[in-house]
């Protein structure tokens, strides 16, 4: 269960040319709820505020206003408990290059309070699914970005999290592995976990997401099952919704 209530988040950046400070309202009053056994897809153009929202759910950023609860634990009031319930994946999160995937997974199992042997078994099982078994005992120094992403996926899932927060999980993955990841997410849903993912791959959203939220400029423009959205906007595909929203924003 994920619950966001009126969440605000802004950044102060400096414009090097005008030498003035500028506020960027990355997230403006987003409220949403994702229930167990549900996959929620977060869509939106670059800089819309998707990653910021997911980072706040993962406890890596703090909302300026509003509150967030993960499995009943507030990210501000019980940060450790909330973080422990989340499996967070993002391309920002890197692996320790000096370790092999096996060592890496054992260590993170310990960090998450899982018995290292159990963590290793779970992680290796995941890596097998992701077709990385041949590399479990190779130092990650020479790994490709896709291979690193695979290890990160295993890292995010090895503590059996109730809530799964994936920020663009298929970036850098080949089509076969991307499909595996989507299958994995579907499996998580059937296991009754709460899943929220952000992506730019619209067909993927139509295929696996139970509900879709579209963010534009930090504002959530409704959320509904993909089919309902298509009906509401009266368009054949999701990208048409984007075009329509962009036109509205420009007007």
């Amino acid at each position, binding site marked *: 269960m994920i619950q966001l209530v009126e969440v605000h988040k802004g950044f102060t950046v400096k414009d090097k040319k005008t030498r003035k400070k500028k506020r960027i309202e990355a997230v403006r009053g987003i409220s949403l709820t994702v229930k167990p056994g549900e996959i929620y897809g977060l869509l939106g153009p670059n800089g819309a505020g998707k990653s910021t929202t997911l980072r706040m759910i993962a406890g890596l*950023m703090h909302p300026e206003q509003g509150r967030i609860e993960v499995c009943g634990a507030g990210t501000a009031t019980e940060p450790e408990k909330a973080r422990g319930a989340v499996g967070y994946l993002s391309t920002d999160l890197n692996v320790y290059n000096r370790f092999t995937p096996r060592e890496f997974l054992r260590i993170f199992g310990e960090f998450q309070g899982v018995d290292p042997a159990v963590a290793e078994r779970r992680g290796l099982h995941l890596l097998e699914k992701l077709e990385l078994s041949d590399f479990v005992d190779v130092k990650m120094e020479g790994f490709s970005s896709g291979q690193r992403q695979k290890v990160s996926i295993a890292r995010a899932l090895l503590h059996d999290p109730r809530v799964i927060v994936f920020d663009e999980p298929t970036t850098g993955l080949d089509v076969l592995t991307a499909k595996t990841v989507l299958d994995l997410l579907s499996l998580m849903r059937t296991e009754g976990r709460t899943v929220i993912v952000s992506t730019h791959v619209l067909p993927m959203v139509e295929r696996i997401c139970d509900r879709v939220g579209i963010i534009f400029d930090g504002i959530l423009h409704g959320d509904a099952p993909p089919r309902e959205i298509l009906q509401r906007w009266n368009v054949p595909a999701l990208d048409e919704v984007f075009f329509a929203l962009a036109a509205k924003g420009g007007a």
Partner: protein
Amino acid sequence: MRGAWLVFKKEFLELSKDRKTLFFTFAMPLILFPLLFTMMSKLGRNDAAQRKNKPSRIFLVDQGRVLEPALRADPKSFQLVPRPETELNQAIRDQKLEMALEIEETAAAKLVRQETFTLTATYDRSDDSSKLALERLRDLIKKQDVAWVQARLQTLGAPPQLAVPSRLESRNASSMALFIAKIMGSFLPYILIIMMYAGSMQHGIYTTAGEKERGTLLSLLSTRMPRNQIIWGKLLYIFAIGLLATLMNLLSMAVSMAHLFSTEAASAGTKAAQAAMESGGIGNLSAVASPATLGLSFLLMIPLGLFFSNFILLGGIQAKNTVEAGTALTPGIFVVVVLGVFSMAPGLEKMTLLPYVPIVNVSLAIRKLFSQQASAVEYLIALGMTVGLAGAMTWLSTRILNRESAIFKV
């Protein structure tokens, strides 16, 4: 504390994967000091030995042939050379010869008349071999004087012992090794302090700003581990590296010192050197500083080490990348060095405020311990202040890590 321990373990595991860094951190000092010491003592010994083995070249003016036979009789120490082509003083300065010796023309006659005659030796006081020539000449003349006096006594019918009322026998109680130990003893605290800081700085940057740069810190922070445990684990790691590096240096120093003592004892074979061998290198160190002094000094080093590791942690965690952290922390080495030099300056004990200046008071306290002027109150102030500062910095580091601006570049 479990989280801190896990982070600590992870840091060491990560370090152990990097053989080269491991080697340069721990094995290097083990090799460095013995190498340095043997080179130092070899060089010193060779130079001295070479000078001792060469006869001193002397240009002699001795018309009465008063001293010439005695000089010629000792070819190991003296070699008579013809007048140099250049000016005499210049030739000595140019090391064409070691000394010019001029004996009064009337010396022989004066000797017969039982009067005093004069010898004029010209030498270069700034040159060791020239000084050696003078020393050798003094020894020779002393012996010659005794012979002459004894001859005079004989003509008077007195016993020859009259010329020798006493005989001084000197034994060298010290040795080159002990000399080095003494110098080391006075520098030891500073060497250790510098080693501690320099040894752990790079590792501290690697685990803080480095983790940020490599994007692994976010992975670490996304786990359920509390932030303060992560800080504690990293702190512990930096501290342990500093301590280990210091211990390695100390060990290496002690071993090479002991080796120096034993080789010197073997080569010299004198009583003093034998005593040095019996008591061993460490034993001689204790002649420089008592175990209590050393122990109390190290007790101060621990909070100081904590202070340093906190400082490194703080510098690393607030920086955006390793270059920034490195630039912020490198001047620290100079501060540490200056601190050491500063607290060795004379007359500091009289400054009343100094015991209340943090960090400076630590090196002051160590210095007073070594010079046996320690005051319990000042010692405790230094100890308490350092621990307090270290604690405050740990708190600050945790605060910074809790701020997202520390993790995300804003």
